[in-house]
């Protein structure tokens, strides 16, 4: 919770680097770098400070359920004898995982309380993970809370979606659109959800891409539904996929939503927004969300101690330490009701927290990538995930135009180890060794390799019974980089493993000055530089 004397949060802004500017913090995997940026031609985009959280989140949740947007109050939709399915976002949200109680727990408890009052007995709770890995018991407990877990999981009523179970998935139909890429726009859904009288979907909208029809059309879907928009053609048409008005991914999900409206179950959407209190207002990591010139003596001491400690730790120890961090996020809004109306309001709140106005594009954009992406919670950030974090997520955090001009250079800082989690990412290993060794062109790999990986029986078995991402997942990661790969003139990784970086088709550099010098070969001498001071998350509104 925010301290009582916390001054009102300041908006994000762009700092022009001058001689007085202290070294700037770059996240660097499970570590940090302090970098001096060239004076006179560099700028740093700082995120807005965390908005104040709601004082009584449980009360606000109940109010949202009782007064939904463009829909009937939830209690009036609940009747004895009905089939109710509650679906919730999986462990890829929020990042890092939030401190207990997770917002999903608060909402699911409130929904179940109303269901209990209405005498609803047939309730299923499903982690809508599509082609992501299954959540472990500890992860499920963290998301829904012990009370809900213990009441439902032992009876098989709380479980992970199995999108490869042929008996448990149904096709709802196809959209009128012919679809981008080799497949038509098919809408697939878990059978239980499709046959329910009501599906309540519980979202955490960390970024503007989350939520809306994407929740049900993608989260409760399998390969047949997801491949309709997770392809290079859709991604290169999404400029960016964080900007709904310019996102083909968004439009595709919305078209699928129309089919769900016609042929699917009634959806009651609950969306929530969190502030960007990722590292806390005080505590050991508080300095990471402060502006460098405002670091107190305590912050500087803590940061130095942390750096010294990290130097002496093995990569596995560092990973363990960082992944144990639970963000003290606070709920800033909750809205429920009809999917599109709810999502409109949610997006406003997400933009209010994330949007930072930026004047014009730049020749070079720099970014420090943290230890975490949506796909390596409690896992290893392998080189493919490094690429998607930089070129997929951070690059696409813009509205209007990309921060970097067409043909410009993206410099990202990350150790990029040639290391994979064998349980979570088995198909990534083969993708890296086999596919990327052959081609880095998303379209070519889609036609040549995607089907083979997607239908591989061993990957399918690991996805269904172990904790592995689906066989096709690394392809999707690479497709998410499509827009950036098409737009950029070059990608340089600072401090990365040379071999791994080259395999990705990027250039390695040992220091930032080296990387900037290399960038000059592509964009010309004395380029303008913009650094995204992210995380906490920001979205550049580029004019």
């Amino acid at each position, binding site marked *: 919770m925010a301290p009582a004397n916390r001054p009102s949060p300041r908006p994000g802004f762009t700092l022009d680097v001058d001689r007085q500017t202290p070294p700037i913090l770059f996240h660097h995997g499970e570590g940090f770098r302090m970098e001096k940026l060239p004076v006179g031609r560099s700028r740093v985009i700082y995120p807005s400070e965390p908005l104040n959280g709601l004082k009584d989140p449980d009360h606000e949740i109940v109010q949202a359920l009782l007064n939904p947007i463009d829909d009937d109050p939830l209690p009036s939709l609940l009747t004895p004898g009905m089939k109710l399915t509650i679906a919730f976002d999986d462990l890829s949200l929020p990042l890092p995982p939030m401190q207990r109680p997770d917002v999903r727990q608060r909402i699911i408890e409130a929904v179940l309380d109303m269901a*209990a009052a209405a005498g609803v007995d047939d309730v299923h709770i499903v982690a809508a993970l599509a082609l992501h890995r299954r959540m472990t018991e500890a992860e499920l407990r963290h998301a829904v809370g*012990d*009370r809900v877990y*213990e*009441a439902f999981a032992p009876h098989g009523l709380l479980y992970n979606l199995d999108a490869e179970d042929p008996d448990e998935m149904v096709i709802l139909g196809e959209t009128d659109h012919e679809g981008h890429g080799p497949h038509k726009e098919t809408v697939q859904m878990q059978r239980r959800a499709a046959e329910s009288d009501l599906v309540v979907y519980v979202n955490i909208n960390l970024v503007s891409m989350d939520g809306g029809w994407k929740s049900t059309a993608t989260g409760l879907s399998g390969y047949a539904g997801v491949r309709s928009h997770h392809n290079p053609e859709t991604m290169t048409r999404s400029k960016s996929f964080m900007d709904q008005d310019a996102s083909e991914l968004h439009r595709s999900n919305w078209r699928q939503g129309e089919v769900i409206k016609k042929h699917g179950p009634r959806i009651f959407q609950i969306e929530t927004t969190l502030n960007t209190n990722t590292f806390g207002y005080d505590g050991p990591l508080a300095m990471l969300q402060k502006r460098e010139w405002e670091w107190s003596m305590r912050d500087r001491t803590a940061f130095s101690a942390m750096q010294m400690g990290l130097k002496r730790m093995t990569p596995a120890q560092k990973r363990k330490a960082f992944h144990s961090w639970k963000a003290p996020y606070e709920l800033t809004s909750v809205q429920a009701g009809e999917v599109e109306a709810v999502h409109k309001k949610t997006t406003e709140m997400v933009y209010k927290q994330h949007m930072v106005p930026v004047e014009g594009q730049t020749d070079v954009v720099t970014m420090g990538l943290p230890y975490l992406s949506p796909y390596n919670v409690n896992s290893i950030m392998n080189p493919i995930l490094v690429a998607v974090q930089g070129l997929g997520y951070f690059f696409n955090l813009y509205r209007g135009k990309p921060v970097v001009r067409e043909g410009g250079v993206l410099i990202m800082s990350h150790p990029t180890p040639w290391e994979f989690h064998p349980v979570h990412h088995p198909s990534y290993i083969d993708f890296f060794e086999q596919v990327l060794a052959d081609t880095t062109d998303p379209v070519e790999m889609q036609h040549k390799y995607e089907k083979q990986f997607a239908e591989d029986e061993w990957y399918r078995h690991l996805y269904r019974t172990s904790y592995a991402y689906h066989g096709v997942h690394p392809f999707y990661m690479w497709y998410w980089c499509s827009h950036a790969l098409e737009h950029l003139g070059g990608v340089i990784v600072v401090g990365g493993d040379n071999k791994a970086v080259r395999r990705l088709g990027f250039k390695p550099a040992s220091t930032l000055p080296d990387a900037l010098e290399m960038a000059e070969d592509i964009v010309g001498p004395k380029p303008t530089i913009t650094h995204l001071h992210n995380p906490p998350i920001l979205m550049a509104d580029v004019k």
Partner: protein
Amino acid sequence: MKWLRFIADPPTTPKGVEKRHPRPKTGVYYDVEWSRGPAAKLIRRMTVWGFMKPAIRIYGSPRVVGADRLKEVEGPVIFAANHHSHADTSLLLATIPAHLRRDLAPLGGADYFFKSRWAGALSALFIGAIPIERTKLSKLSIKNAEKAIKRGDNLLIFPEGGRSPDGWTRKHRPGAAFVAKRANVSVIPTYIDGTGRILPKGKNWPTRARCAVVFGHPLQATEGEDARSFAERIETKINELADEFGSGWWEARKRAHAGTTPDLHGPDGGAWRRRWALGPAPGQKRRSPSAKRWPNI
């Protein structure tokens, strides 16, 4: 040694002089103000960390349920719990989330914890107790409680007024509800399970048994609600928490909404029937009717 006797023996009062009866310094009159300073607080914190937490972990291996419900709760608040044992206070001092535990003041029976100045000093210093009369709702008891709330303390009240004699709970008295209403603070309903097996009433030495504490959402008196009905609501909530602990959250919520939550008062009838209804202690089995009564020879 004359001087020592001089110091130790109080002077006698001359005859014919009316003896002045000083205000009593024990019981509900015991002044605990000295025990709210930083030094006493530090001693209490050390007691909790150095003694109570390890002791309760060794003897009770407590399970804490519902601490997440207190995340946004800011003091002062009143914890109202069922009461089985002296171990209850230690259990709560060891398990209440840190931000609410720091200034926790249990209300202790003036006739028991403050019967002498020594007992009062120990109770005030080590558990931060505040004296209250259990048999009646006296002005002084209310004043003591209100003073603590004004100071920013969180109160711990056992509304039954004493430890359960047989494992079942007794009807709640309205003290906690009355104080909460007067001071306009929330009540945290709290259910304690298993401490009656660790240190039941009448025993002086603890035995090992598993215990648990379940915290509920804060309750506030509604407008126009009197202390008695607020007390009943608190008691109902504690019953629901007990049901949640025993049969799971979802079943408990369904029963709560249907108004069929079992209470904790136990059946009417003789002592043995009430004991019998509690069932066997964990790890013990009742002899089944078909079991052999004699060993094989």
